[in-house]
């Protein structure tokens, strides 16, 4: 079986209009992939930038996959939320990016988007907070029903991911 190590950090996020951000992340793979070690999803701490506008999480990611096929190459997906001083959480953006397929260290910048509702919901969000959220998280990383959505841009999530591949040449895959 070929093995893939994804080792790195979710460095932080920039470009969001809200401060006090945290991120829920997860990784989605196809049926041929099996997670040998590591946690498949997690949540970062809430970071309030005091210097500059970038929220830093430095959240470690360490995953070890074994795979029988290339289909369903891992995708990292994110939900960035902001927390206000009362402890309420509001969605700031959804985003996903594929894990790179060449070995080495990669800097990834993942753009995010958030669903816009009707004009009433947008007005309510500006005053009271809240706003529409996705019911099913898999729309974040799949293209299937996206045409129904009307979204606005959020900020960018920054990652540094290192990739180690093992035994791929045994199966005739060059990388």
């Amino acid at each position, binding site marked *: 079986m070929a093995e893939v*190590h994804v*080792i*790195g*950090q979710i*460095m*932080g996020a920039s470009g969001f209009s809200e401060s006090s951000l*945290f991120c829920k992340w997860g990784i989605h793979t196809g049926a041929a992939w099996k997670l*040998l*070690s*590591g*946690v498949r999803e*997690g*949540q*970062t*701490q*809430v*970071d*309030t*930038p*005091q*210097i500059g506008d970038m*929220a*830093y*999480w*430095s*959240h*470690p*990611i*360490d995953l*070890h996959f074994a795979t029988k096929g290339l289909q369903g190459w891992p995708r990292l997906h994110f939900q960035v939320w902001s*927390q206000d001083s009362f*402890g309420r959480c509001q969605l700031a953006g959804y985003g996903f990016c594929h894990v790179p397929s060449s*070995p*080495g*260290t990669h800097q990834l910048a993942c753009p995010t988007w958030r669903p816009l509702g009707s004009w009433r919901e947008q007005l309510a969000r500006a005053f009271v907070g809240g706003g529409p959220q996705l019911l099913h998280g898999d729309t974040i990383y799949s293209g299937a029903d996206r045409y129904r959505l009307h979204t606005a841009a959020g900020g960018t999530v920054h990652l540094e991911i*290192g*990739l*180690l*591949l*093992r*035994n*791929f040449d*045994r199966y005739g895959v060059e*990388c």
Partner: protein
Amino acid sequence: MATASPSVFLLMVNGQVESAQFPEYDDLYCKYCFVYGQDWAPTAGLEEGISQITSKSQDVRQALVWNFPIDVTFKSTNPYGWPQIVLSVYGPDVFGNDVVRGYGAVHVPFSPGRHKRTIPMFVPESTSKLQKFTSWFMGRRPEYTDPKVVAQGEGREAITAPRKAVFSVHGLTSPRALALVHIKGT
């Protein structure tokens, strides 16, 4: 070509904790330690250290320089649990107590060569305002009993952390592998 037994490889890390930028604080010292998975073990060098106390330079740079050496070699059979260096910075507060000024962690680089890493530092903050005032007054800030928690992914959702500073670690990594041919990536 495949061997049934696990292949051991070595990872040698040489470097220094170079300097820090903490605009609000002075007279700081740092501690470093390594966090690694179960398949890793240090074979040479020190995996923990405490630096000297440094003050900001009087010139326009306002630099806090430690130039604190890091020299450690790990051996492992599995890249899972790749070592992370965890840094904790402490300094005196207005009353003279030693309080934590920041925690940060970064993975040791994966590829051989010279690397420079700048690590953002954060400090945990209590969510209650009364607690914040009491801890400022008594000098007992929220602090991790074990700084290695900073290198873990689980349980972070409970932390609120305003980020305070920027830290730079200058490192040289050279993985010397007895069986590097089995693991691509460098």
